[in-house]
């Protein structure tokens, strides 16, 4: 079991000390030995911390959560109950930070705490507590308590990017654990996916534009994330309900996981390597295949993906079709692979979404689609992406350049002469010319850009 970080322990002690003193004031005189003992404990804690790092201890509240020097304190139930006295007091004084500075002295702290206790009767006293230079400790309101930037003004595009990034990070962990033969928990991935599926239902184009931002350098986790979300968008376009969209997205994770064993060749494995990798995944019924939620889904995903990778059109024989989720994910993975030119590895040069769609259309017309690629689903993909897929670099009718985000909105990056604008702006356009993305263009900021921000 991992030991709690030193800050966690300090945070708990600090909250216990402060609430203990506040409670003791109700029973004893300020000079009472019990109070002195508690105050000495706080001083020692601050000294200990200041001695090591020279910094103060900042206890911040956000609703019912407490942060100590920006680290969330994982309080247990008793901790929350104990902290309630302090939370209520801080909320009533409209303050969210108690700062204990290095060099704090016992008597100054005693005086501060006496005044703090009296603020319940005289709120004016709170103003005297704001200046940390008087007592070495202060109570005040500060901006941006939490480090997540999780607030109401965060716009959907940025929120979408944040969840997209979160999903990539969690996927990287999932793949690493899978590579070690473990069966990782899916809760955080599911929570993040649920937020992204909500976004697909509200603003599918925002998610589509995000999945066009990614290349080989974003790794297998990037490919998995993009494939999962594109599969979700396809499922949404098909009219499947959100639980089904969710299960289609979840199918992607086990389907790409065996590729993690190919290391840097994850995108360029030969048919033989794929056969071996997927075969190995299916022939090791160890802990990774213990019965649990989703074991059937995981096995089917691995089996079907492996079979498609080996060029088998009908993994189960002619009597039983591959699952719809499998066929959707196969189309999504193929599209992402082609668009990111992933097979080229580090040498990849991104291809415009329009070009990939045109290729897929031609392959469909001429019956050259790869094994497992269902032409009905390719049809849905083409329909969903339309003429100008979100995430495309585009030249507008007036000559300006931008990136399609929420059709017909474009994040305009340049003026009509092709010079970068000081700040991008969102323009509503009717027509444009799709372009192959130039090397070196990082689309990230444009995809998360908001005029409101």
């Amino acid at each position, binding site marked *: 079991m991992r030991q709690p970080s030193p800050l966690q322990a300090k945070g708990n002690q600090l909250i216990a000390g402060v609430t203990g003193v506040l409670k003791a004031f109700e029973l004893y005189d300020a000079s009472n030995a019990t109070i002195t003992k508690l105050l000495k404990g706080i001083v020692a804690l601050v000294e200990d911390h200041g001695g090591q790092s020279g910094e103060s201890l900042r206890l911040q509240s956000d609703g019912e959560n407490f942060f100590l020097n920006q680290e969330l304190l994982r309080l247990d139930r008793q901790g929350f109950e104990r902290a309630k006295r302090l939370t209520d007091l801080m909320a009533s004084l409209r303050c969210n930070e108690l700062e204990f500075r290095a060099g704090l002295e016992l008597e100054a702290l005693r005086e501060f705490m006496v005044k703090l206790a009296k603020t319940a009767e005289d709120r004016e006293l709170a103003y005297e507590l704001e200046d940390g230079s008087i007592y070495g400790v202060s109570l005040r309101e500060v901006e941006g308590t939490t480090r997540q930037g999780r607030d109401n003004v965060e716009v959907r595009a940025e929120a979408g990017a944040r969840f997209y990034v979160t999903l990539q990070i969690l996927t990287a962990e999932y793949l690493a654990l899978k590579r070690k033969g473990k069966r990782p928990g899916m809760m955080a991935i599911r929570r993040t996916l649920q937020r992204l599926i909500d976004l697909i239902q509200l603003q599918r184009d925002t998610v589509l534009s995000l999945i066009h931002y990614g290349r080989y350098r974003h790794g297998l986790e990037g490919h998995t994330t993009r494939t999962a979300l594109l599969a979700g968008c396809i499922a949404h376009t098909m009219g499947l309900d959100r639980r089904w969209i969710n299960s289609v997205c979840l199918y992607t994770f086990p389907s790409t996981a065996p590729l993690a064993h190919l290391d840097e060749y994850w995108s360029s494995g030969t048919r033989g390597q794929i056969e071996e990798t997927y075969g190995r995944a299916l022939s090791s019924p160890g802990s990774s295949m213990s019965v649990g939620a989703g074991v059937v889904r995981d096995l089917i995903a691995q089996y079907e993906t492996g079979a498609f990778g080996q060029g088998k059109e009908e993994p189960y024989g002619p009597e039983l079709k591959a699952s719809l989720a499998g066929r959707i994910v196969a189309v999504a993975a193929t599209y992402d692979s082609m668009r990111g030119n992933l097979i080229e590895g580090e040498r990849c040069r991104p291809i415009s979404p329009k070009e990939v769609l045109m290729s897929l259309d031609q392959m469909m017309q001429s019956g050259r689609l790869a094994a497992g690629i269902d032409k009905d689903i390719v049809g849905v993909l083409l329909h969903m992406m339309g003429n100008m897929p979100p995430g495309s670099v585009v030249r507008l009718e007036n000559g300006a350049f931008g990136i399609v985000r929420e059709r017909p909105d474009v994040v305009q990056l340049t003026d009509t002469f092709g010079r970068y604008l000081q700040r991008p702006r969102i323009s509503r356009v009717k027509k444009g010319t799709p372009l192959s993305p*130039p090397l070196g263009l990082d689309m990230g900021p444009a995809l998360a*850009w908001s005029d409101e921000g």
Partner: protein
Amino acid sequence: MVLGSSSRDSGAETCFASLDKAIKTHRLYDGRGELCENTASQFYNQAREYLDKKPELAFQVSGQGFKHGDRVLSAEDRSGQGYFQMFKDGLRQISILPGFNPEEAKKLVRVLATRNQVQKGQTNEDGEPELEEDTVTRIWDANFKSVRYDAIDSFVEGDVYVPELDKKVSLAQWVNTKMEAYGEEKIDEWQRIGPPLKSASPPPGIPQRGLLGLDVPSPLPSGGIHNFREQYEGDLGSQMERFSVIWGEMVEKASEEQTKALMQMMIGLINEWMDEGNWSGLLRTFLVLRKLSAKPNFKNMVSMIVQASASQTALQRLKPHLEELHPRSARLALRFHLLLGRPGLEALCRMLADIPPGPVIDGFEAAFSAEKVNAMGLYLSRLRSREIMPVVHGIRKLAPMAKNPMVLKALRTSVQREEREIRNSALLALREDTDGSTLTGWGRALFDQDVKVRASAIRALARTPHAIGRSALLERIRDKGFRSLEDTELAAVFKAVVRMPNDDVWITLEELLGKNRVFGGKNIRGVQHAIREALATVDLPESRRLLGAGEKGTT
């Protein structure tokens, strides 16, 4: 318990009290049974009443428990896996809106009552449980129409393993680091070193100045959507077949050690479905196993799996699910048990034995009929129940089959039961039976509190040539309470007894005719009148003698 002292909203508090009760009941009884149903519908009624007056019913979820306004409505339970867990999962508010219906009420109670499940051995390197889902994922999955929720992304507060750093870091911090790629700061870089967009060219096939519309695509035609939805639904139904093909291939390639693991995997899966009452999953699995057992390589393995997972004891796991089965699923359940052969069907019948008559049993009767399976076994099992209603129900259903030796034996045994409802039903089913034990039962029924049962008993005993019938009737006549019976019943008994005459009969009747009491005289006169009427219906020397003696006595 209501804590705190802020302004009260007694309506909301009442609603919470019923929600709290429903959740706890649900946990206690695993969501099964009438009590769970009742508490959920009580919660629905309270919420409905509240929503008639107010636009929404909102509860905040805090570290102290549920709150309404500033008031804490519940103290956290000691186990700490209750409301505090919901708070830890990030749930912060639940609002119930107009349009809330009983189904959603049940679903909400079920979702909130479900505890986070940790699979055995599923912990991460820090020893913390690896969860597949939490309160928030469950609420999201439930897809409520009239329940809104507010949750923070609490999971972001944890740590994540970052392969590129080969260590664990704060997820929130790492997200912020990665978000730099999306930051405005990058835009300043474009000004200096951004690629010249002017040089970008259209992909092959698109003219340099070719203009394409940026229209939002229209939704797919409804026929297409319907087709995909049907495909998906069909897919869910055939998942097990896909799984079985994979499992079969895995078994074929597996070493001896791996085969054991695969076998355990299948057994585990079956057990899981049994715990969930997943009939369709079980049915498909066993269909697949049956198919596999035809192959020589699989025969032994399949038989071991069936032995391990479908033994009489193992099947008992399904009993709670049978009790609350939707009648529509009865056929699936029956088909699954039929697949297991006679022991499976017997186990099903045994599990159904105690279920009171109602929709579940009706569903199974329909299923037996649809599958062309004789339901006799089901009814015979119900005869062994300790509950009265299932036995009575079984007896009524078996009555038309009373000639079957097994049924006859079971019904005769039921006649011996202590419960009068059971006894009487069995006797009615055995109307034509002349067995001694049945007749003895009819004799006992002569003393029953129900006049109709007594009438049936008299008729049944009158029909039999067996001495037991006469003895029983005479015993009834000699009983103290006999004289207080209605005249019609007295007449029926005497008419029955004079048709099976012997010395005992004549002596008993003569004694009664000779009695002349001052007290209770009215009763004895009624009895004597009934005897004379009965004697008049038979033309025998003894009857004529007694009638003559009686006339003399009267004059």
